[in-house]
């Protein structure tokens, strides 16, 4: 049974504490997460860069649109880390059909609209069942924590905005004297190349750095919810006491 291999200490937690646990999980698995995530990020970056040829700030939209798809890779690594399994890029390569390609269309359409996607994504990836749909199960997992998951998603949007602005401000701090910084041109039809490059670098860096924490937070909420529904913490204690 999977509860025995769980590398997370089980105890009753509020949803907010579960989010903190997710951050902790992401910290501990960071090398593997970022290695695999980087590999998955490369094709998205390529498409995003190509789109800047059309209009300078399209790269932002492309990266944003592919976020649910990127989340799958992160979740794959994190879920294995939570059960004590290391993940290499090779492991991801061997599972790529299940993780990345089978639900591709679903991820880029329906899942893109979800307002609490990191809470419910584990249901699709980790529970044996259809890759799409399974709404009864989603409702059961979501019950009572959907508000927290929604708030968490909104907060991460804010955090991401802050980080991207912070990175963008570095361009402003370090730009040579005399560089014109007319921010009204940022989202114009034909922004200066400088803005297009700065936009691309800051947004992709912000998404690259923050997305694993968002996915981990949702995954920890999911684990917490399952532990609560199925009394995992009690099972662990009872098994310890009556192991003989």
């Amino acid at each position, binding site marked *: 049974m999977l509860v025995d291999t769980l*590398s997370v*200490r089980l105890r009753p937690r509020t949803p907010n504490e579960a989010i*903190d*646990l997710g951050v902790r999980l992401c*910290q501990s698995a960071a090398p593997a997460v970022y290695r695999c995530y980087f590999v998955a990020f490369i094709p998205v970056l390529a498409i995003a860069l190509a789109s800047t040829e059309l209009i300078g700030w399209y790269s932002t939209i492309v990266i944003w649109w592919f976020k649910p798809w990127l989340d799958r890779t992160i979740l794959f690594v994190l879920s294995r880390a939570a059960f004590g399994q290391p993940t290499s890029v090779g492991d991801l390569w061997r599972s790529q059909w299940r993780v990345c390609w089978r639900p591709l269309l679903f991820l880029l359409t329906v899942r893109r609209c979800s307002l609490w996607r990191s809470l419910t994504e584990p249901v699709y990836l980790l529970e044996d069942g259809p890759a799409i749909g399974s709404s009864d199960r989603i409702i059961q997992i979501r019950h009572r924590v959907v508000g927290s998951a929604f*708030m968490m998603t909104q907060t991460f949007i*804010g955090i991401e905005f802050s980080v991207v*602005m912070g990175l963008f401000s570095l361009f402003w701090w370090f730009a040579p004297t005399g560089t014109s910084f007319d921010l009204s041109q940022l989202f114009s039809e034909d922004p200066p190349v400088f803005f297009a490059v700065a936009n691309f670098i800051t947004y992709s860096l912000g998404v690259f750095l923050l997305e694993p924490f968002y996915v981990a937070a949702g995954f920890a909420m999911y684990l917490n919810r399952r532990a609560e529904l199925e009394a995992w913490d009690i099972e662990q204690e*009872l*098994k310890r006491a009556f192991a003989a």
Partner: protein
Amino acid sequence: MAEALDTVVAVETPEGILIELRPAGLVVRSYAFAVDWGIRLAVLYAVAMLTAFIGGVGLAVWLILLFACEWLYPIVFELKGSGATPGKRVFKLKVTMDNGLPVTPAASITRNLLRVADFLPFGFGFAIASMLMRKDYKRLGDIAAGTMVVHQQKPAGKPVLADVPPITPATALAPRTQAALIALAARAPFLTVERLDELAAIAAPVSGDARRSGRRVTHRVLGVAQWAMGRRE
């Protein structure tokens, strides 16, 4: 197996007692920050509407209030006893020293003055990086002042057990096992019947039903939980 992941920080008191603090991370602290920000904004807005009628003096009063809201608001609330600004109180958070003691005036002033450093390079970038990378989720101001923001809320309330006649256990039970049985009985109403039977089957030796399971065994295990709670026939 490596040590199980958890967010708690263990602190030893001078008396040698180990207490666990649960540091609060970036997301819940952002909620608290947003509430505090809203409160300050509302106050400043309301006062601005009043002072607008008294000209230059009004503007002076308003600017002093702006200064107070920015710099004194968190310090005053953190030192007022509860150790939390209104926003933190909404989400059951509290500022403490690293060793769990109430926050001192010097530490409170330090951590709030350094909010400026946390704001750099723009929009709290350093604070976000620090809170995501540290195991105790401190921002720069917390590191400098030796303070920590911790959760106060206990997730579980007082256990309510189903009414089952108590049964004397078949074997001697360690306190930790008794606690697990009570936890099982308290959670019983929220579990599916099948799952409850499954869990009770693990604990079946306590009622002398080892290697048996089913509705009746579950009933008897819950009876032992009643016994552990202190009920006798």
